[in-house]
């Protein structure tokens, strides 16, 4: 992104990297009809785990529209998101962004515990007391082994979609 001025840089994250095992967690996982407590480790690999800003923020809309338009829903992979938004907000988000047919599901983590666990927590400026994950994507093989990781270094920053798609496609074919 070239805006002609410097965007805010974030501290280097300390997230799980390729070859490491991603932390497991259990949170409500929302589909277009209901939500149910689900462990990350219970999802069928490969898993594409997308941390996104709270539902309603424009990067969330951009990120999920991009993944939808790239046809991630048609891959033989499990595509899930995670934000601090409530299950109710996730339900709206799935509906508003035409994600029902994609099979994408969204974890709800209002207290940002998962973001802290992954070393990607971000205290939002101007929103006192609100912490959320910074944008990040992980492609996980069986046993939550990290195949691909990307974490935002600037605010805002968007995932490297081509690299993500390549990694996920490779994981599907592996």
């Amino acid at each position: 992104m070239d805006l002609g001025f410097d965007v805010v840089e974030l501290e280097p994250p300390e997230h799980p990297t390729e070859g490491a095992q991603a932390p497991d967690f259990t949170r409500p996982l929302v589909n277009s009809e209901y939500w149910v407590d689900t462990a990350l480790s219970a999802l069928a690999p490969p898993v594409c785990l997308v941390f996104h800003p709270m539902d309603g923020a424009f990067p969330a809309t951009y990120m999920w529209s991009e993944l939808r338009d790239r046809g991630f829903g048609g891959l033989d992979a499990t595509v899930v998101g995670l934000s601090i938004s409530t299950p109710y907000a996730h339900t709206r988000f799935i509906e508003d962004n035409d994600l029902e047919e994609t099979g994408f599901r969204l974890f709800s983590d209002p207290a940002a515990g998962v973001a802290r666990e992954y070393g990607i927590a971000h205290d939002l400026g101007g929103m006192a007391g609100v912490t959320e994950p910074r944008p990040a994507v992980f492609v996980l093989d069986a046993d939550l082994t990290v195949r691909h990781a990307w974490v935002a270094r600037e605010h805002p920053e968007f995932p490297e979609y081509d690299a993500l798609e390549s990694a996920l496609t490779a994981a599907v074919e592996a």
Partner: protein
Amino acid sequence: MSESAITLYRLQACPFCERVVTTLEEYGIDYESRFVEPLHSKRDAVKRVSGTRTVPVIVDEHTGVTMSESDNIVTYLENTYGEETPVAAGHEGGS
């Protein structure tokens, strides 16, 4: 988590749902909670399994029973899993 034989469709803070939860926990029955939306029009999943949009609903794969109405459900759970009828106690070790 998705391996529980009993699925409970519930609404957050719904006293009828909580009543069923209390009974499930009293008997130590393993179950999965699926939370749905307050608006009836958003409850297609419930309608699909039970024919109505009201909650609570339980789906019991042990017995093939799907049931609405907390009164009915509590009575069913008592009769099926209550201490005096240890019929389907094997919710973990089942066939």
